[in-house]
Each structure stands twice: as C-alpha cells, then as structure tokens.
C-alpha cells in the first residue's frame, strides 16, 4: 500500500513540475499558418507572384467584401458606364443600388459605391505591395532591369486604378507605397491628375515594348493610357503625339504592330482575342476549377440574354436611342446625326411569341447586330432572338445586349453556373479607340481634319467588311447548320468622303463622337466620353436628360416599360461623378471633421 502511495505521489509531483517546464517561451510561440511573410517573398519568384496578385485585382470580383449574391454588381464593366449613360437599360429593376445608375439618384450611403471605392483602392495597394516587397528584395536576386520592369508594371497598375477612381469619384486621394494602415487617412482636396500622369509616364518611360505575357502592361499600353489621362483633362495637345506614336510605332505585348483586326466580331471572340488590336485588356479565363468560375468574366455574364440553357442572366438591354443611332443614311451610308430618332426602328415590343414580325428594313450600320440582339436576327448560332430570352421584356424593352457574348458551340469552353461565365477579356483600350482618340485630338487641337477623317474611316471600313456581317441562317429552326451568305439585315455603311474638311471642325467633332458611340458601344466608354466632352459645359446633362425623355416617351406606347425611369433626372454639376461613399467619409473623421470631402451636390 505504501508503495502505491508513493508511486502516485511521485507521479503527481513529476507531472506538476512538467507543467511548469512547459511554460517556456516557445510554448506560446506559434507561427502563422498557411501564409508567408514579406521576408519569404523578398526574392525574384516571390515579388513576381505578388505582381501577379496585383494584376489579379483587375478582376474586381477578387477584392474584399464583394459578392455577386447580394445584388451589387461591381466592376470595370457595364454598370456605371453603359447603364448610367443610357446606352443600356438595367434588367433587374428590383435592385435599388444598381437602379440608381439609371435614375441618377445614387446616395452616398449606397453600398455599391463603397464597393467600387474599396475595390479600386484594394488594387492600388496591391500594386504598392509589389513596390514594398521589391524594396525588400536583396540586390543580388534581381538585375536592375528586371527590378525596373517590375516596378514599372506595378506603377502602371497603380495609375490605372487611380485613373478609374478619378473618373468615377472626382475628388479622390492618391495612395502610394508610403501609405499604410498607419497613415492612410489621406485628403482628397488636391487633384491627383499630376500623380496619375507621373505614374503612367514612369511606366511609359521604363516599360519594355514587348512582354512575355499578353496580360502585362507594355510601353505602348502605358502611352495609350497616358494619352487618355491627358485627354480627360482636356490636354489634347499633350495626348496627340502619344497617340500618333502609338499609331505609327505601337506594338502589342507580343510585338504585333497595332492594327485593326479584319473582322469586327473577332475583337471580342475569346478564341481570337490576343490580336493586333488589343492594347490592354483584363484577362479572364475559364480555368477549369469549378462552377464558381473565380477567374471568369462574371460581369458580362449577368447581362447576356437568357438563351437556353441559361447562357446569361438576362439583365442587359439597350435603349431605343442607342439602337436608332445605328441607322444609316440610305444614300450616303453615314450616320444620321440629328435625325436618327425621327422614326423608330420597328421592334417586337408587346408582341407575343408567335405573333408575326418583320425586322426593320431600313439601312443600318452592320455593327448594330454585334452590339444588340433583336427579334428576327440571328444571335450567333443560338437561334433567332425571341421574347423569352429577355428577363422581363415588358419592362426593359425589345433590345437585348449582345457584346461579350459567345457562340453556343463554345458553351463547352465556358463555365456553367446559374449563368455561363466566359473567358472573354474586357479590353480597356483597343486600337480602334486609339484611332478615334487621335482623330478627336486632331480636331480639338486644330490639326489636320483629313487625317482625322482617315482615322475614322479606318474604323468604318473595317465595319464595312461584308464577310464578317451577320448572315441569315440556312435553317432558322436549326441554327447549328450554319449561315447563308445573305446579310441578316439591310446593312449599309460608307466611309466619310472629305466631309470633315468640307464641313469643318464642328462637323468633324460630331462625326468622331458619333463614331465612338457606334464603334465602342457597350464597352464601358460612353459615360467617361460624355464626362470629357462636358468639361463643365452641361452637355452631359443635356444629352442624358434627352435620352431619358426619349425613353420615357415609350411609356405611353408600351404599358409597363421602363418603370425605373419615372422621375429620373441627371443633374448638371453633380451626376458627372458618383458620390464618395459615406462610410469612407465617416471613417476619415479627425476631431469631428472629415478628411474626405464629399463631391458637390451629394
């Protein structure tokens, strides 16, 4: 008995001692799990991976706090550019935040603005992370040239996000790599244009002309953006030489000389997108991971028509005004600048599925049917458009969104979720844009109008390439059998023939602006074009209120259409930019005063 007594006593004593021994420092030292420190990334491989992470912020679904499920659609895409400029009509009328783009009644408290703001600064800081990690890389790890390329690409990305912020929110703070969580309450009082210029200029000066990957920024992409930055400030003379040099010497990342591709639809065909027209694009991919398609193009998936079996979300429609703008003069083949709305194209609004319908027989720009889906016209190899492909045609009208769609035959190469998520890239600048910008700069700086007309005509002539036009089906009920050689509609487009010089700068300006609308329709350009052209004149308000009135005029013809637009109004001096998120202003308070100041009118 005694023995057991002592045995247990000893055991208890030993264990008790053990417990104190275990109280060494290392007992409480546990390293973070599943992550790496800057020290581990501070080498060639590491810093390059951080750079890839910075590129990944171009896919806005990668940032924090943003989900597709909660009804807020955020991205570089259609929402605040194409819907807010009334080229497009928002299909899901129940989502108030998104509706506000159409109604111009967005409130600073709306989550959607905070999401955009957070997204873009997330991208800015991801670029700054590259610079900070780069600074920690020992010099023997990277050559000076390699380091410079990394630095220049990161600087380019930082400029790109700041540029988007500036255009969207007006007064925004500039955040470089010296700004961290400790000093991030930066004022938005000073214009950040000079900083954006400096960043793009640094990138343009230092980036190589060609790159190993098409997704990377090269010298010419930086120049093109720098030109755009100048133009957005009205500095056309600074922009022109950059654009001219892009036209004459610019090459893609892969060294292809910038040129328009022969066929207009190839621009947004994911099988052909690494072409000579791509200056810089967001690279989306179907990467075979799951139905969640984390790196696919979600933004445009939502707006595609609901072609069975569920290609799109059916959320994107087009305005009568934009569709009418594609009408061409039956004699000249030129746009009908001031008269396009006089007669509406015939459409099937209010008609039943089986009611007879004849598509519009007048002459139209062939780009119309790459931009828009309308009844009676083949929609790739999906079939003839019908009312059931719209989410809610009685409310949103007869024209569905087509750009950024794909062939049914390609369905296997995209990812099916509740919408089909495609790998189609979103070009931020393509060569046609550069040509039209160069033409615009020539007009604004008093340059050669005939050179400008030549640039515009390059774009129009490509559109006139009949081989790429939409053709009728061999058999309407079996679209897979292919197409005839007969154009699907009465397409007619001609180049300008000296009208620029003959009619002067005002005409040329109108023609160039109209051409941008047609060529770049639904590519998220329009809102910022109008913003640039406004320059305090109020022209943006005039134009958008005009389109709103036009849209509302259909309410008497088609019952139930455009319920969102009742009372919608664009306010001059306010709606040119969006409100700075209230949540950010609240967080910027110092002693009761916000460091971030709200935009006028909000």
């Amino acid at each position, binding site marked *: 008995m005694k023995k057991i007594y002592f045995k247990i006593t000893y055991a208890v004593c030993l*264990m008790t001692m053990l417990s104190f021994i275990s109280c060494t420092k290392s007992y*409480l030292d546990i390293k973070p799990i599943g992550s790496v420190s800057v020290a581990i990334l501070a080498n060639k491989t590491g810093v390059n991976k951080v750079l890839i992470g910075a590129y990944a912020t171009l896919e806005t679904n990668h940032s924090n706090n943003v989900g597709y499920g909660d009804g807020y659609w955020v991205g570089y895409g259609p929402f605040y550019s194409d819907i807010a400029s009334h080229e497009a009509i928002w299909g899901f009328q129940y989502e108030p935040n998104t509706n506000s783009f159409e109604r111009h009644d967005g409130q600073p408290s709306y989550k959607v603005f905070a999401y955009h703001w957070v997204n873009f600064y997330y991208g800015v800081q991801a670029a*700054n992370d590259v610079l900070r990690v780069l600074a920690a890389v020992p010099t023997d790890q990277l050559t000076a040239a390699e380091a410079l390329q990394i630095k220049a690409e990161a600087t380019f990305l930082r400029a790109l996000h700041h540029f988007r912020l500036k255009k969207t929110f007006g007064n925004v703070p500039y955040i470089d790599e010296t700004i961290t969580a400790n000093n991030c*309450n930066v004022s938005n009082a000073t214009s950040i244009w000079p900083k954006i210029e400096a960043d793009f200029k640094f990138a343009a000066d230092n980036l190589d002309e060609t790159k190993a990957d098409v997704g990377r920024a090269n010298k010419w992409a930086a120049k093109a953006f720098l030109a755009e930055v100048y133009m957005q400030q009205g500095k056309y003379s600074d922009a022109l030489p950059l654009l001219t040099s892009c036209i004459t010497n610019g090459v893609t990342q892969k060294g292809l000389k910038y040129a328009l591709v022969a066929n207009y639809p190839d621009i947004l065909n994911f099988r052909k997108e690494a072409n000579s027209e791509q200056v810089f694009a967001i690279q989306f991919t179907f990467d075979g991971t799951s139905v969640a398609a984390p790196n696919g193009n979600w933004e445009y998936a939502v707006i595609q028509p609901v072609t069975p079996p*569920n290609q799109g979300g059916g959320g994107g429609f087009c305005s009568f005004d934009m569709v009418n703008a594609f009408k061409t003069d039956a004699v000249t083949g030129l746009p009908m600048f001031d008269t396009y709305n006089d007669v509406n194209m015939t459409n099937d609004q209010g008609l039943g599925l089986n009611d007879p319908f004849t598509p519009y027989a007048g002459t139209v720009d062939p780009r119309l049917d790459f931009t828009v889906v309308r009844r009676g016209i083949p929609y790739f190899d999906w079939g003839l458009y019908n009312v059931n492909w719209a989410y809610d045609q*009685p409310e949103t009208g007869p024209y569905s969104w087509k750009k950024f769609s794909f062939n049914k035959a390609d369905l296997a190469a995209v990812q099916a979720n509740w919408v089909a998520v495609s790998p189609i890239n979103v070009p931020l600048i393509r060569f046609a844009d550069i040509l039209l910008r160069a033409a615009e700069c020539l007009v604004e700086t008093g340059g050669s109008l005939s050179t400008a007309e030549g640039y515009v005509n390059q774009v129009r002539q490509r559109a006139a390439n009949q081989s790429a036009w939409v053709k009728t089906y061999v058999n309407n009920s079996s679209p897979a059998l292919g197409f005839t050689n007969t154009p699907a509609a009465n397409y007619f487009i001609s180049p300008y023939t000296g009208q620029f010089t003959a009619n002067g700068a005002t005409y040329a300006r109108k023609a160039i602006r109209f051409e941008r609308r047609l060529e770049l329709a639904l590519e998220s350009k329009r809102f910022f074009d109008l913003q640039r052209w406004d320059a305090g004149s109020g022209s943006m308000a005039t134009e958008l209120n005009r389109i709103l009135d036009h849209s509302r005029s259909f309410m008497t013809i088609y019952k139930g259409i455009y319920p969102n637009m009742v009372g919608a109004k664009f306010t001059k001096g306010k709606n040119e930019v969006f409100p700075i998120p209230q949540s950010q202003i609240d967080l910027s308070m110092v002693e009761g005063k916000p460091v971030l100041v709200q935009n006028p009118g909000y």
Partner: protein
Amino acid sequence: MKMHQIILGDKRSWIKKLRIMKLTVILLFGSMVAMSATTYSQTAKLNISSKNAALIDVFRNIEDQSEFYFYFNKEDLKTKEAVTVEMKDAQINDVLDQVLAKTGLEYKIIDRYVVVKEKGSDEPVITMQVARKITGKVTDTTGGALPGVTVAIKGTTTGVITDNNGNYSLSNVPDNAVLVFSFVGLKNQEIPVGGKSVINVSMAEEALGIEEVVVTGYSTQRKKDITGAVAVVDVQSMKAMPSGSGVVALQGQASGVNIISSGAPGAASQIYIRGIGNFGNVAPLVLIDGVGGNLEDISANEIESLQVLKDAGSAAIYGVRGSNGVIIVTTKKGKTGAPTVSYDAYAGLQLPFSGNPLNMANTEEYIKLFKSAIPYHGFDNGIPDYMYRSGSGAAAWAMAGDPAVDPAKYKYDPITLGTNYIIAKVNKQGTNWYQEIFKPAVTSNQDLTVSGGTEKAKYLLSLGYLDQKGTLIETYLKRYSFKVNTEYNVGKHIRIGENLYIIRKAGNGYTNTSESNAVSNAMLINPLFPVYDISGKQFAGAYSYPITTMLAYGSNPVANQKLTNNNYDHSLQLTGNIYAEISFLKHFVARTSMGLSLGNSEGSGFAYNRYFDAQSFAVPNNLTLSMGNSWSYLFTNTLKYENTFGDHKLSVLAGSEANEGMSKSVYGYRQNFLVSDADYLLLQNGSIDGIQNGSGKSHGTLFSLFGRADYSYLDKYLLALTIRRDGSSSFGPKSRYGYFPSVSVGWRLSGESFLKNISWLNDLKIRASYGQAGNASNVNPNNAYSVFGTGVGKSYYDIAGSNNSSTQGFYASQLGNDLTSWEKDIITNFGLDGTILNNKIEFSAEYYKKSIEGLLFDQQLLATAGGAAAPKVNIGDIQNNGLDISVTYRDKFSKDLSFNITANITSYNNKVVSIPGQAGYFDTGALRGVGNVVRNQVGHPVGAFFGYKVIGIFKDAAAVAAAPAQLDKRPGVFQYDDTDGKPGITAADRVFMGSPNPDYTYGVNIGLNYKNFDFSTVFYGSQGNEIFNQTKFYTYFTSFFQCGLNRNLLNAWSPTNTGSDIPVLLSTASFSENTVPNSWFIEDGSFFKCRLITLGYTLPPSVLKKLTLQKLRVYLQAVNPFQITKYSGLDPEIPGSTSAFGIDVGNYPNNQRQFNAGISLSF
C-alpha cells in the same frame, strides 16, 4: 451469504463471493426486517442433505438457508473428516450435534451467531459482542412514515431500505459504526450507533441547498459561502424538459442566462450570460467535469449538477476564458452502494402547425393579386392547366389540349439533361408548401446507466441514444453517447479517477440562419407549381427564368430536402480526463488532471442537378467531401490548503494550467457524377474537370497560473480573492500576458445576534464582487502578423491570356498588430441571498454592471489601407447592466401534497459605449433587397435596427402632396418620418427602429406532487425584443419576388381601399416601400411560451418490491402546448449572429407541439 465470520479464516477466498451477493443481501434484509429473532434457533428449520461433505460446506449450506452466522478458525476445520448428514425440518442444535459429534469440535449459539471451536479451547476473540442488530423507524418532519429510505453502514455496502411503514432492521452492525440515512430530496443524516439498538430518525427536507456543496472555479464551496454570482440550477426541474440537449433544457432555468434555440434537430443554440458583451463569440465557457465541452452534446439526464458563474468574483479565475461566463457541469457519478441500473426513455411525436401558418395565397388569390400588380404579365386566360419546358429550353404555361403539353412528349433523362421535356400539371387549388415540407416527426431518447461502488471504488457506465427527427422533412439528429467514469481511493489519502465521454453525432447539418432556406423557399415559391411533375416521380419547379412567363423564382423546397437527404455531417467526439488527488499534511490537497479532447468530423454535400429549376438546371451536379480532426489537451495542477483556526476559516488554492489545441481539415470536390446514389459518390467518380481540394489548420496554446483565497470569520464575514495570469499564442510577445484579479465579499446578516431571533429568517447574506475577466476568443491566431496569402479566386490571374488556366499570385491577406491583447471585462456585482419562512422561500437578487476595456474589434480602416484583413485591436466598449432575480417557494401541505415554484427573471440593458474608428458605428445584417438593417452605434444597443420610420400609408394624392419630399412617393406607399427637421426624406432621417435585445427574459417552473403523482410545467418568456421580419419582404412586395404572396395583400391599399395598412402592390421596387429598411418590417417579438406540461406517476414501493425495482416512474408530456405572442411569423425565438440577430429569414420554429411518453426506472 451475509456477513461472513471470516475473522479467523482465510479472507480472500470469500471476498469475491461476497461482492456478488451484495444485492441479494440488501433485498434479503429488506424482506426480513419484520421477523423476530429472539427464538430464532428454535424456529429456524433446516434441511440438510450432505454426503461426504467438508464441514465448511455444511456450514455454508446452513448459512444459505438461514440467518445463522458461523464463526470458526479455518485451521480447525481443515483436519476434520468429511461428514454425511441427512435431516429435514431440523433445528440447528440437532443438526450441529450430529455433524460435530465425531469431530472433537463444540459449538455455542448466541442469537444467530454460531461459534465453532475445538473442545476446551478458548473462545475466539471475536467482535461479536460489539456487533448488534439495529431497528428503528424513519419519519418525515411531520411524523409520517418514510418508506424507501436507504439505511447504510457508512463505509460499507451494507444497507437496507425502509419498508412501507418506514421501519428498518439492520443486523450485525458494529458498535462503532455510523448509519447513514439517505433519500432523494431529504437531507442525509448520519448517526453513530454508539451502543443503541433502536435508532429512530426524523428526516428533514434538504434545506434548499444552502448547505449544498457546489463546484465553482477549480474548487468546491458550500453554497452558503459563495460570494460571487453563481446560479445553481435546479437540475431536477431542468431534467423535466425532454431534450437531447442540455442547452434546451437549461432555457429559463437560471437567472442571467438567455438561450435562443432553433427547432431544427441538432442546430446550435445561443447562450448569452448577462447579455451580449462583444460582436463576436459570446458563448460561455462550458466545462463538463473540468474539461471544455459542448452543452448541446450532453443530455439533461446525465447532469448531476450545473452552476453558472456570472461575475468576476466567480469566473475571473478562468481568466481569459471567463468573460462570457462559465457553465460548470458535473455529470453523474457512481455512488457507494450496490450496483444500480437505471433506464430512462421517452418517445414522442412532434406536430407541425396545421393549416396555412405562412398565410400564403392560394392559386385563385395569387392570380388575382398578381394581375392587379402587374397586369401586363400574362394569366390573361385565367388559371393555366399545365406548365412545361421543352428540350430547347422554351418554357411556358399551357392550357389542356395544347400539343406542347401532350404527355407523350414527356421525357426525363437524368444524364442527358439537355433533351428533357418536362411537363407539370398546375395545382389549381394551390400547393400548401408549408404542409408539403413539414410532417409529424418521431423522437426518442434512451439512456441506460449502471453505477455503484464501494468506499474505495466508484464507477458509472452509461449509454445513450437519441433519435430525433425534425418536422421539416429529412432533418434529423442521431446521437450515440457512451460515458464511463471511475474513481478509486488508494489508501486514505489518494484518489485517482477518470471521466470519458464518446459522442457520435449524425445529422444533415440543416441551418436556418441564412436566406434561401427551406422555410423561406416555402414562401418564395408559386402556389401554382405542383410538388411533382406529371411523372409523379420527378420534381416540378420554376421551369423558366424570365419573368415574362411568370414561371420564375422559387426553389422547390420538397425537392431541396429530398434530394439532399444523403448529405450529412457526422462527428465523433472523445473527451475525458484522468486525475489524481493527494491529501497530505492534514490540510493540503494536490490535484493533477490531464484532460484530452479528440474530435473527428466528416461531411458530405452533394449538389444535385436541379433539372426542374430555371436558373441553374445547367449546373453540373457536384460533391464536396470534407473531413476534419482536432485534438486539445488541458493540463491542470492545483494545490489547496485548507484550515480552520478557531473562528477563522481559510482556504488557499494555487494552480497552473496548460492548454494546447490543434485542428486540421481537408476537403475534396468533384463534379459531373453519372448518378447521384449515395453509394456511388466517391470523389474519383466525378469528371476530371473542376477538381478542387484544400485543407485548413489552426493551432493555439494558452498557459496560465492562478490562485484563489477564501477566508471566513465566524461563518459570517466572507472574503474571496482570485487572480489569474494567462499567456496566449494569439498575441504578440509584447502583449501576450494578461492578469485577471477579482475580489468578492459577503456578510451573512442572519448570523448576527440582532437577526438571530427572527424566526422566519433562516439565512440572509449580502455580497459584492469586483474584478476582471478576459476574452480572446474572437482573435485570429495570425493576428499579430502581417502576412501574404494566395488563392485561386483571390490572387490568381490569367497573365498569359491562355483562357484556360491562371497563374498563381500572392496578396496581402492580413495586417498584423502585435500590440493587440486581451479584452478585459470589468464586472461589478451586488447580490442578496436569503431563505425565509422555515426555508420555504429562497431568493436571490443581484445587480450587475459589466463593461469592457479594450473590446477586441476589427481595426476600422479606410479603404486606402488596402484589402488585407484588418487585425483585431483593443478599442471599443460595450456595457451591460441589469438585474437577475430568482425566487423559489417550496411547501409541503401534507404528507401527500407538496408544491414548489421557481421563478427567475433577467433584465439587461445593453449599450455600445465606443466603437473604434471615427464613424462611431458599423452597419451589418445585410439582407437581400433592403440592404443592411442593423447599425451598431455608440449609445445604442448591440444589433439595433436602423432605417426609416413609417408613419403611415399615403391615403391619397392630397396626402402625398402635403408630405415632405420623398423619393417614389405616391398614394398607397409608406410615408416616412421626416426626423431631421430638414426638408425632404433623406438618409439623415433614418432612426433606430428597435432592438432585438429583450428588456427581460423570465422563466417559471412549477412542480406539484400529490401522492405518487407529480405534475410540472415550465414557462419561458421574453419581453421587449423586436424582430426584423424579412419574410415580409418575400411575400408582400410584388416588385421583387412575385411567386409567393401573402393573403393579407387581398386587403392592400387600393384607390377603393385607402384605409389599409398594407401598402399598394407595385411592379417595381421602391424607396417608399421595400428597398430600404423601414419600420414596417419591425414587429414586437415578445413571447410567453409554455414549454412543457408533465404528468408523472411513480409506482409505490409495495409494487416496486414485487417487481424487484428500486424506482419506476412513467410520465406523459406536452411540449410547447401553447404560446402567447403578437408576432406574425412562425416563431419569435430567432437565432442569429451576435452583431445581427432577431432577423427572421424563414425561421425553423422552436415552438411546435410535441407529445411524449416516458419511463424512468432503476433496479
């Protein structure tokens, strides 16, 4: 074979046999007590038939058939020859005369004792003279006989049970023995024999437990000496609630404790002790036999005692784990005595609500409502007969006879879905989706326990099986539990023991805290849809997505439940500890305990192809399998010193604790399975595309030192001090240690001379405590470090433009803060405890205030800081204060009738005092359509609802014109209150619309015993909590979800019904109706629930004796027999997260009626 007379013989050979016989002994004694023994040697008749038997065997034979005891020296017997004897109905003398005739032995009979010895030798020195028979009667305080009382010799397993008249008789009791009288509910009595042969005992009811010793922090205390806020739960009343979960049974039983439960089987309940103290984890620490556990996994039946430590005085010794309060559970242990087998079981039927509890429109009403809202959207020909979707995807309604719905066209092929042609017949009456998904459900629970022990060793083994089906089809919980605990006394000073629980749980993981659950789907789906299509086998659903055809929305909830019935969440949890306790130097006790917890979980989620569903019928089916395991240990060592110096009592405890835990998980994902049979679903059977897998890991350590001192003087003046130092791996080296002190004092007023003579006052004590407890449970273990991470959906990018692959990148995933440290809760508590009126009334009241220093909160960073997750920092303060009151009244009106009632009430005021960042608030509670509905803001309660206040519905155009500017205003929509005085309704007009925090919650338990019947009932209520009823968004607004509509809309505002309080049906979302949170969604969520009515009957001892049972009780129960509430939804008791709760997104009700029959027996 009774107490054997082995004093001179070889002991060992008998010991084994003795044990086996114990139960028999007790029963024998019980039946023999009435016999008189004075002439026993004459009356006892013996039948002996032995051939060539050893003497010892003859003696045993005699012992077996009589009450005689033989005393002899075994050595004497060894040399004797075998004997042969054949006698019938003989007396003992005759038998022994014959048997011993030739042996040279003689005998002597004293009463029933027979001493056998060599002729002429000295009588053996035996203790016979000091062993005696004791008889007596046990009565209650009123003099009534108490049957069934256990009378045992202390330190032995020997004992008897009193008969129907309360009499007992116990033989062979040593003179120095102590008799222990025990009976459930009565105070144990210990009486030394000391030469008496008749001991009559009057047993008093247990004095409401104030003498009771309860387990508190690392120690035990007499309840009367407690100076902290400790709620000692009446386990008897708690057990009345039939539930597999200790949490559910605890609801309403302890003041200061709020519990919100879902009705879903196995769903986690939320326990708040004294309100919500932070925005993250507010779950209290639950210690089951000293090891962290889950109260949900333990059935109320297994609980011996349960204490809730609420203030710093009691909980600060748990340091960083104590801030949310501590629940200390002690499970049943074996008791000294014969083995007892007990079996508890109940079975019941839960019934869903009848009729149309969601108040949904039927087909005819639906079409009427729909057409009035959206006249241009179809149904022009009235109610259609069919709906279909063709292989090409075209979907429409159709009338009978339409070739499109020719049944010959019907085709369903589970593999080539693209060729399906499905047709369903419209339900003209309207499908009552609620009734389709809720069906009566059977629940049963069984516990089998064997326990017993000696003074040296005690044991308890228990098996439990819970099989609970939910009324929501395909929901269930099956739990198998296995428990064993043992304790040995090694010598006088050492105790070693162990506790072990193994729990296996199987369920399908249904939760209802997210939108789009089965209940909300029953509101979102069209009444025209049938459950099945025309095949009768395949499900019907929303065949077409575009709204034009109105076949949109609504996920068939029957299909969702039935097609996921193979999904599961299984877990296996093994928890236990081994301990040793040594008493030494009279006053010291050292204890060491090593607790271990091993967990294993396994989940399977199969997302079937939704062939019937418009929005996702092309999504391939897919399977996710996940497995996880975890282990943790808790190594605790304490040393306690206890002594009394005259009137001074002192107890000091010091200890250390090391705690380490690690968990790991792994999952795999594949898609495109050929068939969906559960037996086929192995990952490798999916297609090669879309493979996903991943793993997770976490690891943390905590090391602590703590001490406690309790001092009392004259039993009147009480003082307790505790301190703890914790070190945690979650914090950086500079800030990882925290100190948590507390002090508490008590004054027993009733012990003072000026109160001693007040006869109605039995006990009165005031007490106060102040101290700190900590919290670190909301901190990510990586919190101190700034790190980068990688993720496909986060930092991968197709930099090469491949269109089919992406390149790995890294992103800043976490900002670190190595100064972040504990959250310290500063708790002040004042209490008053008393018992009055001859212990009939016991009450306890306390006031507390709890504020938090350095609330752990995500650092509020501007977006310009980047996207890395912000660290937790120590800023912010939430304060709670309130009252906890409990009162118990017990009385015994007569021998047959006793009554008790316990009521408790908990009030708390909760206020956010500071929130980091300059904004002073953060918004949360995002809901589809209306956005964030919760704002946590300084000066307001946690989880408060924030939005526009509705002051009415615009009656007409004149009212619209007269009102301030308001977006979308028109007749029939809400008029918002212009609260800021500035013109127009803007965001600045938003106000706090209500709080989901109740003003108070309360529980009432009533018990009534009449003769052998017992009756009990449990009430639980919550007052003053508001609910944001998001289900109104689903069913009242035709602009968003148009498929399920509430019948109340038939009375909506219209130009001819301008007085309605239901807004007009619109086709578009509107600021003035449903796109912003407004007070129309807010409802009073107060409720009063009768949780339980039980009627039981315990069989009387006379019957039990015949059945050879100790106890048998049968009972009938009605669970949730009624409830009183104004809330329009299914159940106002709604779980949620701590920063956003009280939001009804389609709640699995926790108030459905259930009827149980149960049995509880032991033998």
